[in-house]
């Protein structure tokens, strides 16, 4: 085991971890550059890229005009030509203006060219609700993107993943979308000693438990962990599974956890209809139906455009209380708690 780097002992924010990931990538590979709206002089809309312009110059830290389609497409083109662009789309909400490039080009070019082309672009997007930003700035559309073959979708929820997922994404010859929940940027923690790289293949068990599996990702991970703590005081041992990647989904880890706990609650900040939570549910039905002791339950965002007022937004989003209730209801009805 290599000795832990000095930074591993220090406290750092999720934001610092992403910044350090970008800095390491830029230092380590001259093919890498960062571009997006206000990533340079402004320092990044969420201050992720603060200081990088001074360190790397404006050729590699590139401020773009407000032209999501043009600069995401330019990232795809530069990737086709052998570079390793990191494209920051300020938020997932604005990525809708670049959908043509992401869905029609990034996702298709390898297959449509019979394997002649690869698109090793990394697109970083802030996602999610919780900051009273109202409907147009609070989307969680990562599940939507996970629908698309040809894309890889990763969601760093921990400090370790914020620090190391970018390197894994840049190593991938395929287009990778990295969704950073805006609520997590200020979260502080420390890096796990000994971890220096992560993969984009596997889900992770963040808290072991025997009674129910809470399947989640992103900010909702912390709501699940909070719910698990509450439930533990009531004698219910909840396992918390962080999906980490939404495409591909790690069926093996999901199914093996649920086979042990025989109960699954899926917690997703996306809406429930036609959603990632529906996909996970279906896979459990397909692969673990006879091992379930109760129907799968879901805790998702209410089917409304996310509202502004604090009490309305909180009501709309998944919460630790709702998650805990869903678990209690499931175990009570199932009679196996």
């Amino acid at each position, binding site marked *: 085991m290599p000795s832990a780097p000095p930074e591993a002992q220090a406290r750092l924010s999720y934001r610092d971890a992403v910044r350090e990931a970008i800095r390491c990538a830029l230092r380590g590979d001259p093919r890498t*550059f960062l571009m997006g709206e206000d990533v340079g002089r402004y320092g990044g809309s969420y201050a992720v890229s603060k200081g990088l312009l001074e360190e790397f110059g404006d*050729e590699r830290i590139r401020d*773009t*005009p407000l*032209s999501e*389609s*043009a*600069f*995401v*497409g*330019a*990232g*795809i*083109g*530069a*990737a*086709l*030509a*052998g*570079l390793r*662009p990191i494209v920051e789309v300020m938020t997932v909400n604005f990525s809708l203006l670049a959908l*043509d*490039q992401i869905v*029609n*080009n990034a996702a298709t*070019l*390898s*297959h*449509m*060219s*019979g*394997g*002649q*082309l*690869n698109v090793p672009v990394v697109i970083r997007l802030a996602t999610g609700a919780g900051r009273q930003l109202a409907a147009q700035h609070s989307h969680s559309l990562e599940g939507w993107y996970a629908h698309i*073959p*040809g894309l*890889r979708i990763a969601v760093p929820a921990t400090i370790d993943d914020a620090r190391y997922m970018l390197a894994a994404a840049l190593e*991938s*010859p*395929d287009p990778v979308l990295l969704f950073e929940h805006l609520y997590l940027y200020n979260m502080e923690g420390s890096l796990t000693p000994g971890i220096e790289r992560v993969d984009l293949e596997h889900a992770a068990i963040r808290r072991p438990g025997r009674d129910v599996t809470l399947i989640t990702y992103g900010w909702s991970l912390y709501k699940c962990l909070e719910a698990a703590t509450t439930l533990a005081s009531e004698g219910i041992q909840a396992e918390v599974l962080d999906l980490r990647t939404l495409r591909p989904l790690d069926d093996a880890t999901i199914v093996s956890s649920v086979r042990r706990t025989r109960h699954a609650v899926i917690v997703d900040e996306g809406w429930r209809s036609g959603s990632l939570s529906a996909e996970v549910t279906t896979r459990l039905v397909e692969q673990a139906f006879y091992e379930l002791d109760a129907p799968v339950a879901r805790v998702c965002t209410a089917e409304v455009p996310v509202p502004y007022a604090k009490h309305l937004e909180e009501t709309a989003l998944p919460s630790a209380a709702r998650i805990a209730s869903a678990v209690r209801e499931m175990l009570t009805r199932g009679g196996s708690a």
Partner: protein
Amino acid sequence: MSAGTEVALTREHGLELLREMMRIRGFEDRCYQLYGEAKIRGFLHLYNGEEAVAVGAMRALRPGDAIVSTYREHGHALARGIPMNKIMAELFGRQTGCSRGRGGSMHIFDASRRFYGGNAIVAGGLPIAAGLALAQQLQRQSDITACFFGDGAVAEGEFHETLNLASIWKLPVLFLCENNLYAMGTALERAQAETDIAAKARAYRIESTAVDGMDVSSVEHAVNNAADKIRNQGGPAFLEMRTYRFRAHSMFDPQLYREKSEIEAWRKKGPIVTLTTRMKALGLMTEEDYRRLEDDAASEIDAAVQFADSSPWEPAADLERFVYAERAS
């Protein structure tokens, strides 16, 4: 129209240009026929009438330059030097096609010739061209990116976003607008408040010229000049190629939107007839030369059809290959 188009035409050069245009014309006519025979399916957009643009432009570009094209790209692909066999096999959906039957008529790719499609979303190729050019700029290459698109693309946001980006970043992109006057069936003046397309590029401070796209020599000359300017001074350039599509938009188009007389008038100034007449008048070629080029094209096309028709299908078991890169294990 561009000035200084009177480049001295030699017999050898003129016959080369004519040969390329006749290959494309013959290829497209055969595709029309093969569609009727159900050998080719899906969408098929033919390039008849616009051959001078592809041939003139590709003559002026270099092998290291990157090319981005549209769904009406058979002519660009052939003029770029992609083997006719591979293109025809792709149209037949065969394993030996450029994209192993996964792309079809609208998605011809050849990475080795830096030919990046075959993009079937109008204006969707422009941002990619900007990215290819950005890579050339960052890698200090003298190569440029040539991006073909039609007049329909001018109405799309991606056109405006990309011209602006290319201009402020001084990207080495040559924008080649093939203005054939119709976006499918919608005439330019019914879709555009400003029908002077070259003027739109000037609004982004990009040097821009309108070119007689029916005259292959004018096209070659203009692309040469523009490419030189990009290589020497950096920054993008824009050429509006004024051309015309002789056939329908696709195989499902009864052409209700234009008069037969209009098509006939344009056919009279078609790129092949114009060059042939000019060369004959200058004593640079004979009717025999013309017949020989016609025969050569027909033989090549026959061989391509034979190749495509006898090629294997991609195994259905390989359906999911190439969705993600295949890593060496």
